């Protein structure tokens, strides 16, 4: 691949850059429902992704993606060359039309510029996986036993349980990256995850909840869970039982009230993982800020234009710092992104001041920034997008019990559930798995179907306490792009206290 990438500028006219990504995934897993096995699976897949930048008057990009098979491996050189030619042909065709449209539309055509990539160090490296139980060694029957056991345990956790689904998957993924600049990177990741969906029904209500566990480790996490610094969860069976009990408990609770005014809310680290994902992570992706997701995942209120943006301005309380760090463990960990840029920690908000974006080489070139390695695809056949790594609120120094203990009247918001965020992330409504009333510093009544809503900046400015209980959580299903790519990443934070309106059920 490195040889193919190196030779291509000599073989194809007006080609300025090319990169090739090849991916092999070997995975297995199983699904159970209500204590009965539903499916086992094993899969081996290969995928190829190519980017070319070419053009004579104006440079433009072209791409090619394909799913491959073991049978394709002997003819890989021919397939890659064909893919390079297809991507080059598209890039050249687009470059020609780009120049013509730029000319035709005068002032409106001036923003059509040659595609540039910001420079990065050329890296040749190999990164190996970490696991104790090799995903490839997992017997399909063992996978089925694990999910059936967890599903049976969940079903037995409460007589109110009406349905449960438990799934597990483990695999190894190898990614090769080579570019015409000379990069040659070979990274292999282990990835194991479990998923639980439960429905409980009481005389009061029905509650459906779903949650996931996962890490870039082996099958051992399904059996025994994880204790890896800020990332900690039990094995799949205990996790399923806990979620089942939670659904049963909440189904008997009264509906949460909807408040007309802001109230004091203490949000736990699990809830804050989703909050950070939605209101800090997504709007600090530079492709959104540069309007590239206007039709899909949306823009960013942090950046309206080069003249009007929040860079260097206060967007949150001085107690709030947020970052994205591929060096932390979990789903968001990697050494190099999908264009060979070393992943590095990015400070997004520092003591309440907005500092910058996650980026790619192309978007970094547009704003004159240094690439920070957040350009990732859900598979080699897809074109990468700017993605969160491990994106989180930084820890503070307060004891979470004290943060709650100081509240005369308010609500404790526990566990992430479902988000709805406005297009540029300026407003949110996010539901929680549990809401407790807080009176005189103590937890009181439990409510179902509660959550909070606020304008993002108002909420971030209202934060008056940040806990020292920083945690990370695996996020298995973030959707972005067209076609939509579902991506795994890490999000987290500590306990926070701020002000928002409580939301309940629609009457």
């Amino acid at each position, binding site marked *: 691949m490195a040889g193919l990438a190196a030779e291509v500028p000599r073989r194809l006219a007006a080609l300025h850059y090319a990169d090739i990504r090849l991916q092999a995934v070997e995975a297995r897993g199983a699904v159970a429902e209500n204590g009965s*096995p539903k499916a086992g699976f094993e899969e081996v897949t*290969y995928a190829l992704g190519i980017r070319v930048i070419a053009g004579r008057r104006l440079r433009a990009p072209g791409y090619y993606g394909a799913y491959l098979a073991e049978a394709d491996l002997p003819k890989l050189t021919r397939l890659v060359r064909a893919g390079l030619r297809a991507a080059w042909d598209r890039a050249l*065709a687009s470059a020609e039309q780009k120049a013509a449209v730029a000319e035709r539309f005068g002032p409106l055509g001036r923003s059509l510029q040659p595609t540039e990539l910001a420079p990065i160090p050329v890296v040749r490296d190999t990164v190996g996986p970490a696991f104790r139980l090799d995903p490839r060694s997992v017997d399909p029957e063992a996978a*089925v036993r694990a999910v059936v056991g967890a599903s049976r345990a969940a079903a037995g956790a409460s007589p109110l349980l009406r349905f449960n689904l438990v799934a597990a998957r483990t695999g190894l993924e190898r990614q090769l990256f080579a570019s015409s600049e000379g990069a040659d990177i070979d990274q292999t990741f282990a990835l194991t995850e479990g998923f639980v969906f439960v429905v409980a029904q009481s005389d009061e209500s029905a509650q459906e909840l779903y949650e996931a566990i996962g890490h870039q480790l082996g099958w051992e996490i399904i059996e025994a869970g994880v204790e890896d610094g800020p990332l900690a969860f039990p094995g799949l069976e205990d996790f399923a039982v806990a979620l089942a009990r939670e659904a049963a408990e909440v189904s008997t609770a009264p509906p949460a009230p909807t408040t007309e005014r802001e109230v004091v809310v203490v949000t736990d680290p699990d809830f804050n993982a989703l909050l950070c994902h939605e209101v800090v992570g997504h709007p600090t992706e530079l492709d959104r800020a540069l309007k590239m997701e206007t039709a*899909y995942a949306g823009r960013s209120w942090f950046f309206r234009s080069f003249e009007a943006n929040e860079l260097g301005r206060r967007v949150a309380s001085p107690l709030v710092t947020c970052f994205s760090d591929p060096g932390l463990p979990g789903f968001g960990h990697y050494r190099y992104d999908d264009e060979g840029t070393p992943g590095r920690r990015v400070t997004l908000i520092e003591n309440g001041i907005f500092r910058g974006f996650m980026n790619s080489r192309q978007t970094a070139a547009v704003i004159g920034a240094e690439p920070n390695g957040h350009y990732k695809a859900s598979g080699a056949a897809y074109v990468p997008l700017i993605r969160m790594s491990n994106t989180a609120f930084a820890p503070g120094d307060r004891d979470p019990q004290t943060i709650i203990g100081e509240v005369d009247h308010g609500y404790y918001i526990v566990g992430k559930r479902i988000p709805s965020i406005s297009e540029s992330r300026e*407003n949110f409504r996010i539901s929680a798995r549990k809401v407790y009333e807080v009176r005189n510093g103590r937890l009181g009544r439990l409510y179902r*179907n509660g959550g909070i809503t606020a304008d993002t900046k108002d909420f971030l400015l209202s934060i008056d306490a940040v806990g020292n209980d920083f945690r990370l959580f695996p996020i298995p299903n973030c959707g972005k792009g067209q076609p939509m790519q579902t991506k795994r990443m890490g999000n987290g934070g500590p306990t926070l206290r701020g002000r928002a309106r409580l939301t309940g059920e629609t009457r």
Partner: protein
Amino acid sequence: MTLRVADLRAAAEQAFARVSRAPGVREVEVFLSANTSLFVRLNYTSHIPCNGVEEPKSMSSYGLGVRAAFDSPAGVTVGFGAEPGRLDPEGAERALEKARRSAVYDPEFVSLPRPTGERRRLRRYHDPALMALSGRQLVAAGWQVIETALEVFAADETVRPADGLIIGGDVTVLQEQVAVISTHLPQVQTDQSALIVSTVTAMVEAQGAKGTGWSAHTRLDAFDGGAGAEAARNALNGRGGIRVPTGRYRVIFGPQPVADLVNNLLAPALSLETFYAAASPFTGQLGRRIAHPDLDVYDDGAARGLVGSKGITCEGLPTGRTWLIRGGRLVGLLANWYEAQRIRLDPHAAGKLGADPTRFARGLVPRNGFRFGRGGGRHFDTPPGVYPTNVVIAGRNPVSRQDLFRLVGDGLYIGRIWYTYPINGLRAGDFTCTVVGDSYVVRNGEIVGAIRPNTVRINDSIHRVLNSILGIGTTARPTLVWAADEVTYAPEIAVDDLRVEEVAGFLEPGR
């Protein structure tokens, strides 16, 4: 590798002949597919350096999948295996062995699909020109959309590049070919489908104005890039948008919000697998009134000319019309073969459905077993799930657009919503979303001005909305929403008493 449907047909016969004779195989199904998805993502920004056509790209795959039931000491076990890049009998054998290794005893398995008694109605409906679209034609289609939008902006002397003109979206072409054969459907069936869709968002960002345009066709010669011009016109019309205060309003939902509600709430809620899990907001209400008596909703995968139509399902069964809501009553559910069978075995079925499944057998026909995924295509490496095709919304007493506005009087026209999720879980039926463009204030039955995008959040319930319908428009437009598999034929619908909340005040100048 260029594959024709005849190649798939021949390969299916040979593969089935090989795996159906394998030891221990009780029933088997072989599904072969070859998909190509072509995409051009668009990103034009007048105030930021850009490419215009951002990503001309493609994704292709082919291979075969085998579902099999095996005789085993534990009883009948069921498994699925897939082999990418292989269509030959040896590939089928490898897939069968994967299915055998991963087979499980599923007490709810009845059989692989058997004939339903219905006949296939749709054949030779794809456009060969669309199936043969080249990479260069794809690029040209993307630039065509950009140019139609730029022509609209250029013709308006009141906008300048510094106003932040944005054109975003895509042109997507799906080229699908499948073949399927099984123990109970032993004649190879093939299907070819292709479609071209374009969704475009345009903005005059400095004035907070956003507009949408879209098109969906099954024929290449129907594509004219007009979605770009439509989006640009709507963006220009959205300038000068105002805020609306928190309250309850009579509203008209345009086609996109109707499709968004279908995609995120109604379609999942009307799937038999959701009822099996007791997770539908309509749990226990089959046969009962769940909506205004004027409302009809059906899924029709066999209607010629509709964009989401297919000849057969990915289980080899005929597509067709499934009535879901008829005169406001819940009369049917989307199903695949597995779900249609297991509900009959479920001792709790009557409680989950609200009726004996045998009494409602005509409403539970498996016409929606598809293997959609990866943003388009019918994929050999996925067992069949339950997916809508063309969801058609219609009124029994449709009213003209003028009458819809008259019914609303003073209220809102909501033309595009975003992030529409069942915020308290699907079962509760509550939803929330924000209004992101194409929306207007209505006074005395007339549009009097635009609503500023991203300043209104809707908090309501699907139950309340379905029962508060004031009128349903006469014209249904094929409408896609981001990441949806189905096409919704959505009319404008007027609804009473919608709960909206003014949000994002901090972005106003001076705050």
